[in-house]
C-alpha cells in the first residue's frame, strides 16, 4: 500500500464558523488530518486583555501579529504534521489575511513580502459568503481584528472592510475554480 502524500490545505474565508465547518469537512476526508487554527500562539488572546490606554492597533500592526502567529503555527503544528506524513488544514491561512489587508488599504506588495516565509498550500478552499448577506456579526480572524483596529469601532468601517475582504476572497475562489475547469478544445470555424 502506498503512503498518502502529506498535504497542506488552506481554508480561507471571513466568517470563522464557516471556515471551521469547511476545515472539519476537509479533515474528515481520508487521509484524516488535523486543523491548525489561527491564534494558536495566543497573541490575539493577549490583545483582548490590553488596556484601552495602550491604543488601538492599525491593520499593519494586526497583520504583523497574524504573521507572527502563523510563523508559530508553521513551526509547531503545520511543518511537524507534514513531516510525519499527515494532512494539515490551515484555517485560515495566508489568503484571508491578505484579503483583510487589501480591504483595509494596505498595499499588496507589503502583504506579499510579509507572508513570503509561508509555503504555498497544496490546495485552497474558500468558505465565502454571499455578497448580500449581512456581515455585521462575523467572528474568526477578520471579525476579531475589524472590531479591534483603529476606526473599527465605527460599525460602518469594519462592516465595509469585512464586505470588501469577502468580495476579494470570492474573486480568488472563482479564479481557482476557473483554473480547475478543463479547457474546451477550440472549435474550428
Amino acid at each position, binding site marked *: 500500500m502506498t503512503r498518502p502524500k502529506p498535504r497542506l490545505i488552506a481554508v480561507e474565508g471571513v466568517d470563522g464558523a464557516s471556515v471551521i465547518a469547511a476545515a472539519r469537512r476537509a479533515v474528515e476526508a481520508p487521509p484524516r488530518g488535523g486543523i491548525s487554527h489561527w491564534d494558536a*500562539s495566543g*497573541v490575539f488572546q*493577549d*490583545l483582548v486583555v*490590553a*488596556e484601552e*490606554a*495602550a*491604543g488601538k*492597533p*492599525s*491593520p*499593519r*500592526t494586526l497583520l*504583523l*501579529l497574524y*504573521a*507572527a502567529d502563523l*510563523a*508559530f503555527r508553521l*513551526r509547531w503544528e503545520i511543518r511537524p504534521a507534514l513531516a510525519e506524513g499527515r494532512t494539515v488544514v490551515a484555517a485560515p491561512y495566508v489568503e484571508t489575511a491578505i484579503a483583510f489587508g487589501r*480591504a*483595509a*488599504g494596505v498595499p499588496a506588495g*507589503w502583504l506579499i*513580502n*510579509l507572508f*513570503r*516565509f509561508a509555503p504555498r498550500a497544496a490546495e485552497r478552499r474558500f468558505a465565502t459568503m454571499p455578497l448580500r448577506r449581512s456581515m455585521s456579526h462575523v467572528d474568526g480572524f477578520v471579525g476579531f481584528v475589524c472590531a479591534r483596529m*483603529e*476606526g473599527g469601532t465605527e460599525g460602518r*468601517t469594519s462592516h*465595509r*472592510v469585512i464586505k*470588501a475582504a469577502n468580495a476579494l476572497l470570492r474573486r480568488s475562489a472563482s479564479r481557482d475554480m476557473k483554473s480547475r475547469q478543463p479547457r474546451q478544445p477550440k472549435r474550428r470555424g
Partner: protein
Amino acid sequence: MLQPGSALRLARVRARKHFTDPTSRRGLLVAFEGPDGSGKTTQRKLFKTWLKSEGYDVVTTKWNSSELIKPIIKSRKAVRALSPEEFSLLHGADFRHRVEQIILPALWAGKLVIADRFLFTGLARDVARGLDLDWVLKLYQPLLWPDLVFYFAVSPITSGKRVTATRTPNFYEAGQDVTHVEDPVESYQHFIARVIREYESLALIFNFITVDAEQSIGEQHHQIRQLFLEGQRRPWSEWNADAVAEWLCRNGKAR
C-alpha cells in the same frame, strides 16, 4: 478604510506642507543606535536634559516599549518560545504601534522625538539571526527615516565587558536561540560580533553619524551636541511622505 490613491496623494501634499513650513519649528526625530553596552542610554538622558534646557519639547521612545505589544513579547521571551521570524515580526509590530501612537503624533505637533533604538536595531539583530535583510526592511514600511542617527560604535570586546560587568545577558540578548552556546557570556560574545558587523554595514548604507563610544561620557556628549546643532538644519526627508500620509489617512486628517 479603503484609501483611494487621491486621498493618499492629498495626504502627501499636506505632510510636505506641514513639515516644510518655514514659519514653525518642525518636529525632529533623532535616533540613538548601537550594540548593548555602548552607552546609548546614558547619552540619551544627557542629551534630553540639554535639549530641554534649550527649550525643546522632548518625547522619548524606547525599543520594545509599547503598552500593547511589550507584554506579548515579554511573556514569550520568558519561556524562550520565539523563533527568529516570530522575534522579528513581534518587534516589528511593537515598532509600528509606537510609530503610529507616539512618534508621528509627536512629530506632527512639532516635538523632538528621541528614539532609544530605532528600526536599525531590528535590522541588525534579525539579520544577525540569519533573516534576509530585504524581507526585514520591508516589514518596517512605510519607512520613517530619522533626521539624525547617532551610532555608538564599540568593539565586541568592550560591549561584552560592559554588559557582563554587572549582569548575565539574558537568553535572547545573548543570541542563545541561534548560537546554541550554553554559556550566555560566551554566546553573547559570538552574537554581538555578528550584530556589530550588521550595524557597521547599516551605518555605511544609511549614513549614520558615528560616535566613538570608547571615549569618555563627557567627550561623547559634547560631540553629540555639536553634531546635533549642525544636523538639525537638514531639510525634511521626502522619503517620509508615505509614512506620514498613511497615518494622516487613518486618522482622518488627510485634508
